[in-house]
């Protein structure tokens, strides 16, 4: 078994001291793997990622139970700056490019964490090699680029910090199917270079296709986990998340309700 990179142990997250968003999420990202976190709107995917990257407090959220370990160190009390330095970086949902900066400036902001500014030049080339599309747009303002390009800018920016683990939140949001495939193909390439991924996605089909492992999250708890290939084959997953029933397509009206419980992982 490969070394575990990120371990989330049964965390509970509360926003604003009242709103319970996560009630027991446990997951494990092994080194060199792509792990997908699937679930519907509001099921807690983004919250899980933000808990891992320590961005929760910026939205008045806090981890009230459980722990998060990165390379066997507890990081739930660390901060975003140090985490990025240690190699965990998040690509936010909805891209969040700096719209008044040029594409190149956007990407460069990702390298400020590093002491040696000279390395930034090489890394910039590496980013452009992965994302050919944005090389030609490097002088234009990021706010004026297309959704797919913005997704690439955001990922390129994250790549500049030479991360070991990228937390990718909803990369397919608002993109054409072809672009989604392109983005995931790049994820696969980066993965071959040794970057691990934890991807939160609603588009279960694509996410499982490119992932090694998958977790399904519902109402703030993980209800299923397994190898991506096995998950793709499960009838309940097929029906709930892929829209394919046993006898071809089913309508959501006659969907079977699968009673699931939170499995115990400990």
């Amino acid at each position: 078994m490969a070394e575990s990179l990120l371990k989330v142990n049964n965390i509970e997250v509360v926003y604003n001291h009242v709103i319970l968003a996560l009630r027991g999420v446990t997951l494990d990202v092994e080194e060199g793997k792509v792990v997908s976190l699937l679930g519907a709107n509001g099921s807690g995917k983004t919250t899980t990622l933000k808990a891992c990257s320590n961005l929760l407090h910026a939205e008045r959220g806090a981890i009230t139970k459980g722990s998060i370990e990165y390379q066997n160190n507890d990081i739930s009390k660390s901060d975003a700056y140090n985490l990025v330095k240690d190699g965990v970086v998040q690509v936010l949902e909805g891209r969040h490019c700096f719209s008044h900066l040029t594409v190149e400036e956007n990407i460069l902001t990702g390298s400020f964490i590093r002491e040696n500014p000279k390395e930034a030049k090489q890394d910039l080339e590496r980013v452009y090699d992965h994302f050919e599309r944005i090389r030609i747009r490097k002088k234009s303002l990021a706010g004026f680029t297309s959704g797919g390009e913005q997704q690439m800018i955001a990922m390129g920016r994250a790549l500049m910090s030479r991360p070991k683990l990228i937390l990718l939140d909803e990369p397919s949001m608002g993109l054409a199917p072809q672009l989604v495939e392109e983005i995931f193909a790049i994820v696969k390439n980066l993965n071959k270079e040794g970057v691990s991924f934890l991807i939160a996605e609603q588009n279960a089909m694509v996410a499982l296709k490119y992932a090694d492992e998958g977790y399904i999250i519902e109402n703030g708890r993980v209800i299923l986990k397994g190898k991506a290939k096995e998950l793709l084959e499960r009838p309940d997953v097929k029906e709930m998340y892929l829209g394919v029933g046993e006898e071809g397509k089913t309508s959501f009206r006659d969907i079977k309700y699968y009673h699931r419980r939170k499995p115990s992982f400990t």
Partner: protein
Amino acid sequence: MDWVYLIEVLVGGLMSGVMYSLVAIGFVLIYKSSGIFNFAQGTMLLFASLTFVKMTENGIDFWTALFIAAGIMVIFGIATERYVIRPLANQDLLALFMATVGLATFQEGFSQFIWDSDVHGLQMSKFLDIGLLDPAPIFVSDHIPWLDILIPKFDIFASLVAGSLIVILAFFFQKTRTGLSLRAVSDDHMAAMAVGIPLQTVWAIVWAVTGIIALIAGLLWAERVSVSFTLIEAVMKALPVILIGGLTSIPGAIVGGLVIGVGEKLGEIYLADVFGGQGIELWFAYFMALIFLVFRPQGMFGEKLIERV
């Protein structure tokens, strides 16, 4: 129309506009990077110049005093970020605004408490041997024969200082890493945090830089109107400047200042009869700002929202 007189009025207006711009830049810096409208800008000016004046009155020489005052303002700026802004991070912006109102009140009392509440004169020409600080005005006709106007030398000095400050700031923002992080933070806090830009450090830098700008602006203003609480009121003139120039734009603060300076003087001289007598200089700036608020609320150079359709 006496065109030489008109030019003289225009130049006078531009020069006083520069003084407004200097104060407005301080507002813009903080607003741009953190979305906070810093009500304490005026008292920062007062505190800075009072600190400087008291030191020179106690026999410390000009450069040392300037250096120490700058140091105090930097420390003060960092402390403000650490103890006032940071505990309130992610709170409602109104709460942060109220905090700066509190800061203003505190600073007003604090500077009285450690220094005093007298009116102090400041004459930089006593310390610095620069020809431009000579109070006598320049006859431009000595240099340009066809232009027969008078310009106070000090105004030229102030404009030069302001101009170089603006060039330095522009360089800082466009070319340095810190400047780029600052612009990133002002665009999107969350994304800046996600890529590992330390927000708190960036804010501390902004407050420190603002403190130094407050010192420079305070000294120039003090030379004109003396160091006292009138300084705080002078700063209120910077409000219409940022409304006109745009809260998020440094060039806007500069152009806005010039527009207000010139508009005020022109209004005073050519429109006074229309508006019922002398003294419209006092409120004309606010009147112009009101018109801007109606027709172009983001100001001349305010950030246009980039929206994808």
